[in-house]
């Protein structure tokens, strides 16, 4: 290396100083002359600056034909002299985006110098979406990043997916907050966040090795600095469910149940359906208008040698389903101090505490759809209506009323580091991070009776306590230097991470009292006590060696090489270490002399990268066959329970990493002096050796082992563009991003073609099949071909079992005259969208600013599994009114029966389009002019009103087509149990002193 550098230096030193020429001209920025622009002949010591009129004159050594112009806030330019003696140059104002210093893994880099696909969202781009979750406020902001609001429950986190789903396991990206590596960021207060870097390609993620395959999200919190400021901000608002589902009213219900009775060969049970009128819509009973509040106080400041940020936040959200609520209190202290010239120390600490009032969401939501509309929520005496009498369900209002389930989470996340600088170009950092959380839950159910099937004979209490700690110790040595036109930087490191957690829980019955002061185990009958405990939240360790080298030649040619070796306790000795390399190349074409940056294209950069990353999230100890306790047997005339133990799962000692190989080609283009910036990345990600507990036949008698069986492809295109224009008084911007993903299972375990999953909740049926050649977790069932209209049609078309007139007619795909599960089911759709879309815009005039966000997704489907059931006396959704009653009455919907294949077999009847476009947020804000704020001794004062999830254009008939169930095999199946999202209106203010 030394020799290489030496010879490079020698080369540069050979600049001949023979004949010289002089070049002069004027440098302008827009219409104005620019004063103090640095004008240089690259590779020589020759340089000058422009005068008060923007003029310059420079001597150019012979053999040189290039001038460079650079000025803070403007895009630097290289101009070819080509024999001219006068060269006037117009510099364009640099977009913030291009000047940006981007936080990457174990370092920072100029956006221009990046070879990887990294998108950055700054705090001011996080719009005023009222949420405690950073993820929710990132939806639609970054191409290649899909944000799914996993649930609308108060305090719910969002789900992150970067560039499709490259695993059959946990597809969550890795989170890095101020250098601390974490699996979730629920503790983060979005208002503390300074910037979010989304690392998408392997050049960016390989430095996170075995955990980089799902992408990496690096979050930096606000560090303070500058003069002291005090910021107070607050908002308050109200939420309501975005839409409700059309269900039958009482008269329609009685009519259809009568019809079902007749079709089932029984007497109709409601002699006069009309007498019931409209009845109860149970959704109106469980949903409510719910308030939301947030208040934040922060102090920032620093001096020459230190920075600090101290903030406190309180957030409260009541749920749109009665009985649910979330409260959170967080504080943050970030601090740094340059102790000596060579030593800098810093620390970041977040302390938080939250409380949730929980309800059994799934049960309540589904019951609200299925409870019969004849029963009243409460009768005239205030007693809960017995929905089991007619409809065989519970009363959802009573479920809410008798629920006393509260959970609390305490979390401390922090890190401290010291940077030691030496030999000018070297910095050694040792960083220790800690993530500690403590969760508790208590669940009290009083003794009550609504009906025989909705009652609790004895009051009971369950408590749960768990702690988890995760520490990280990283030691890195970094180097950076410039040698003339050469820039070189690099980092090597050694890190350890260790995670352990444990839970303990217990329960008792027959409490001596029923108010909250008795919600303790000791209040219950000791003879009913039970308890359990063990490892929870992971028992794993990682030892890692990492390194990266960046080389930039003249701002034009970029090379990045990085790699990481990870050793993980999750893998057996046969495969404990994995190596994950990457290489990235970049070319800033517009920095070339031949490029005319005054033309249409003011900026052009090309990137390409290749690399490998891994995924290790498969749970602990999977490589070793573990003996399960608790399989006791009873013996003896005076019976006792003797312990029993056996294997319940198979194990795989050869367990290895999942490996994702990703290739990325990117282009970054600026038009019209970079007013329009455009970025596109084409990528191909193949994940092989995907760890999965591939289902095995039950006759094996044990749960399957996790094996490196599958291979999945994600290829796609991420595009984003921004247009910014205007002056201080009037500005506007428009941004759009789109992500196209093609997901395909390339291989399962070599000989299996089908991978079934996704229980539909009826008849043990599975709704998804991860078939080779199709998207992972594709929906799989019969294609609807119509409804049997007559006996002739019954004879004419193939049947599934014994079907009747009015039953669904499925397509006989292979034309063999019978419908069979083995041969006539086909792929009916997938939960993975072909395209996700985000559009963001803003218009500002004087102090007034209007911003909007649109998000959307296209090409995904939903299985409306809540319409699949053994109905008995459940209420039906309005769609069931379109039933078959006589020939010609319906070609799509079957006759009403209580059960049977019409309602229990997955067919395209239950697969709906999940595409949508949502007006995610509109905010109108006003920033008061300085004459007012000066008088109030404020730096700024802003007020705003904001609406979130205002309008959604969707085909799907359920609450929300974004159905996340936690597993690739299960996503997109709507069992009617996901907490719906809310439409929220808020008003807020923001004051800085």
């Amino acid at each position: 290396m030394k020799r290489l550098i030496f010879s490079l230096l020698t080369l540069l030193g050979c600049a001949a100083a023979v004949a010289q020429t002089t070049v002069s001209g004027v440098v302008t920025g827009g219409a104005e002359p620019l004063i103090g622009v640095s004008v240089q002949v690259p590779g020589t010591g020759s340089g000058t600056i422009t005068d008060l009129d923007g003029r310059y004159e420079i001597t150019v050594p012979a053999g040189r034909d290039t001038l460079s112009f650079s000025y803070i806030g403007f895009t630097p330019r290289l101009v070819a002299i080509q024999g001219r003696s006068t060269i006037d140059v117009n510099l364009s104002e640099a977009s913030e985006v291009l000047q940006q210093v981007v936080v990457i893994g174990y370092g920072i880099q100029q956006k221009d110098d990046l070879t990887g696909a990294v998108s950055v969202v700054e705090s001011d781009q996080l719009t005023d979406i009222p949420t405690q979750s950073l993820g929710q406020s990132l939806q639609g902001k970054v191409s290649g990043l899909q944000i799914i609001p996993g649930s609308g429950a108060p305090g719910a986190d969002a789900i992150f997916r970067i560039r499709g789903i490259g695993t059959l396991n946990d597809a969550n990206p890795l989170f890095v907050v101020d250098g601390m590596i974490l699996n979730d960021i629920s503790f983060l207060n979005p208002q503390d966040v300074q910037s979010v870097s989304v690392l998408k390609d392997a050049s960016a993620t390989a430095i996170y090795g075995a955990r980089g395959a799902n992408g990496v999200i690096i979050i930096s919190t606000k560090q303070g600095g500058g003069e002291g400021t005090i910021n107070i901000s607050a908002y308050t608002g109200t939420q309501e469910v975005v839409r409700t589902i059309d269900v039958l009213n009482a008269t329609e219900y009685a009519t259809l149940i009568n019809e079902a009775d007749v079709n089932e060969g029984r007497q109709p049970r409601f002699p006069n359906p009309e007498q019931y009128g409209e009845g109860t819509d149970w959704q109106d009973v469980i949903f409510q208008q719910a308030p939301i509040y947030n208040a934040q106080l922060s102090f920032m400041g620093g001096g020459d040698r230190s920075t600090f940020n101290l903030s406190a936040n309180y957030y409260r959200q009541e749920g749109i389903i009665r009985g649910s609520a979330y409260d959170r209190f967080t504080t943050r202290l970030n601090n740094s101090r340059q102790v000596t010239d060579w030593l800098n120390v810093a620390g970041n600490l977040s302390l938080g505490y939250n409380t949730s009032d929980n309800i059994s969401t799934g049960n309540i939501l589904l019951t609200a759809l299925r409870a019969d509309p004849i029963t009243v929520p409460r009768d005239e005496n205030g007693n809960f209506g017995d929905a089991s009498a007619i409809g065989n369900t519970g009363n959802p209002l009573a479920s809410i009323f008798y629920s006393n389930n509260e959970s609390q989470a305490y979390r401390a996340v922090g890190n401290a580091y010291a940077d030691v600088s030496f030999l000018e170009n070297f910095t050694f950092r040792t960083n220790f991070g800690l993530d500690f959380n403590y969760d508790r839950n208590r669940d009290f159910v009083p003794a009550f009776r609504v009906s025989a099937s909705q009652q609790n004979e004895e009051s009971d209490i369950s408590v749960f306590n768990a702690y988890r700690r995760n520490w990280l110790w990283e030691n890195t040595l970094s180097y950076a230097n410039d040698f003339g036109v050469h820039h070189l930087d690099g980092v090597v490191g050694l890190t350890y991470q260790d995670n352990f957690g444990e839970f303990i829980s217990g329960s008792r019955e027959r409490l001596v009292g029923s108010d909250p002061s008795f919600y303790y185990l000791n209040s219950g009958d000791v003879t009913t006590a039970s308890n359990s405990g063990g490892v929870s939240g992971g028992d794993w360790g990682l030892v890692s060696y990492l390194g990266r080298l960046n080389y930039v030649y003249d701002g034009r040619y970029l090379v990045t090489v990085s790699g990481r070796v990870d050793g993980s306790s999750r893998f057996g000795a046969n495969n404990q270490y994995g190596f994950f390399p990457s290489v990235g190349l970049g070319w800033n074409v517009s920095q070339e002399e031949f490029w005319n940056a005054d033309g249409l294209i003011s900026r052009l950069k090309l990137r390409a990268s290749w690399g490998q990353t891994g995924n290790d999230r498969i749970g602990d100890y999977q490589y070793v066959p573990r003996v399960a306790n608790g399989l006791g047997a009873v013996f003896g005339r005076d019976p006792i329970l003797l312990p029993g133990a056996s294997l319940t799962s198979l194990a795989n000692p050869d367990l290895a990493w999942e490996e994702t190989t990703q290739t990325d080609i990117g282009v970054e283009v600026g038009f019209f002096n970079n007013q329009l910036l455009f970025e596109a990345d084409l990528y191909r990600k193949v994940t092989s050796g995907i760890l999965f507990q591939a289902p095995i036949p039950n006759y094996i008698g044990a749960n399957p082992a996790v094996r490196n069986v599958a291979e999945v492809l994600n290829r796609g295109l991420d595009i984003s563009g921004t247009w910014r224009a205007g002056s201080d008084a009037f500005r506007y911007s428009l941004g759009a991003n789109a992500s196209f993903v093609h997901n395909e299972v390339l291989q399962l375990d070599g000989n299996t073609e089908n991978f079934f999953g996704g229980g539909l909740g009826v008849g043990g049926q599975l709704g998804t099949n991860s078939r080779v050649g199709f998207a992972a977790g594709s929906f799989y069932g019969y294609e609807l071909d119509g409804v049997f209209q007559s006996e002739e049609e019954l004879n004419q078309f193939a049947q599934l079992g014994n079907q009747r007139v009015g039953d669904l007619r499925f397509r006989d795909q292979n034309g063999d005259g019978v419908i069979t599960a083995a041969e006539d089911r086909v792929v009916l759709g997938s939960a993975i969208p072909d395209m996700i879309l985000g559009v963001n815009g803003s218009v500002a005039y004087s102090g007034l600013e209007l911003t909007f966000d649109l998000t959307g997704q296209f090409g995904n489907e939903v299985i409306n599994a809540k319409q699949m059931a053994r109905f008995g006396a459940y209420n039906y959704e309005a769609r069931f009114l379109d039933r078959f009653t006589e020939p010609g009455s319906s070609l799509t919907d079957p006759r009403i029966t209580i059960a049977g294949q019409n309602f229990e077999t997955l067919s395209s009847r239950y697969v709906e389009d999940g595409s949508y476009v949502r007006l995610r947020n509109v905010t109108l804000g006003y920033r008061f002019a300085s004459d007012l704020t000066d008088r109030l001794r404020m730096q700024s004062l802003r007020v705003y009103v904001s609406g979130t999830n205002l309008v959604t254009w969707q085909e799907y008939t359920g609450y929300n087509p974004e159905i996340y169930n936690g597993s690739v095999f299960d996503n997109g199946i709507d069992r009617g149990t996901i907490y719906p999202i809310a439409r929220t209106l808020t008003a807020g203010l923001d004051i800085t002193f």
Partner: protein
Amino acid sequence: MQTMKSILTPLCLLLLLATSCTEVLDRTPQGEYTLENFFRTEEQAVQSVNAVYNQLRSWETHVFSFIGMTDIVSDDSDKGSFTSDGFFLEEIDQFTFTPTNVAPASVWSGYYTGIFRANLAIQNLPEVPEIDEQVRTRLRGEARFLRAYFYFNLVRWFGDVPLLLEPFPDNFAIARAPKAEVYALIESDLQAAIEALPASYSGVDVGRATSGAARAMLAKVALTRGNFQQAADLSLAVINSGRYALYPTFAGIFTLEGENSSESVFEVQAAAFEIGGGGTQYNEVQGVRGVPNLGWGFNRPSDDLIAAFEPGDPRRDATILYVGEVLPDGSGIVEGDPNIVGERFNQKAYVSDHPGGNGNGPGNIRVLRYADVLLIAAEALNEIGRPEEALTYLNMVRARARGTSSSVLPDVTTTDQAQLRQAIWRERRVELALEQHRWFDLVRTNRSFEVMKPLRPSFTQNKNELFPIPQTEIDLSEGALVQNPGYN
């Protein structure tokens, strides 16, 4: 990667960092053994076999679907409860089920889980270093008895089934073994169990499989196979062992006092501990639905069963619990659920009030009792032309049933083989009603079509004698499993 480790480890040390590399990576499962350090002691050996017994109490093995596929499917009972409750069992009752029905899948998985645990024990018991040889032999015999029982039910439900004799087969695509092979394993397992097991147990081991249980089970297998001579020999051996006797009262067998009585040949042991862990849902799913709330009201005794009892047979009232009747322990009156028409319950599954709620049922599941053995003997002896002896055993059962009411259930006297066969079959039905034997008896004697067709028009001959292989199993078997006739 081993070389990488050898390079990296010194690197670690070189950097003089306090934490050693390997310490972070060294993890052992917390709170549980692994296969490497298990099967070392006698205690662990016993636990491995206890885990096989554990599976007998499971929902899949002996509760909901099991009852559905033995009683509800037969002429002895209807599904019970309200119509849409547990609808897959209504399909079982009506013979409208398909390969995706939950019930066959449920028992399939329950029984094969038991077989896996038995195979694991059978494979590893010989290697346990610290164990008394007698205990080793006995444990292996117990595991083989239980494996045979699991396969016996499977082969009777499904016909040919995959035959797994070891826990970790190399290839998971395993075709169905012919019935004869399955039976050969069952017979050799039971034969081995007869030799390995003691005739009885004491103390905390009461309830484990005995040589008598293995012999009686083998007699039942022989009867099922039509090996009447062998069935007669084995059942007579059990009878002549003198270890068993009919319980004095018929109704008493099904009380807690009747558990592990002189009549008990093999029972699944269950108990309702205050903290749970020892119960089953066997009692709950068949318990009174409504008032008092004792359960779900499944397995409703059918009209046909009621009609099968001879006039005055006291077993009818001991078998069926009617609405309006006083509960067997006198604790109340059955009111039932007014919304359900014609409720009645399986009284044999009734248990008195017990800790832990209905789902923590304490009732032992009577798998094999002495009356069954007597009737096996009677049936086999009649088939091999020894009707006089057959009558003896048949009439022993009738005499006990008769109790003190001498006017009912007169002794059967016919020695005509066909008539006696019918009499024995009828006796089996009423004596063992709702004890999950009926369906197997119907299929074994080739009567399922003639009996079920008039009651259940959807019954299809040459199809419904066997249950379908669960569709998911076919899907997962990579083509190794072929569906039973008529279910494709």
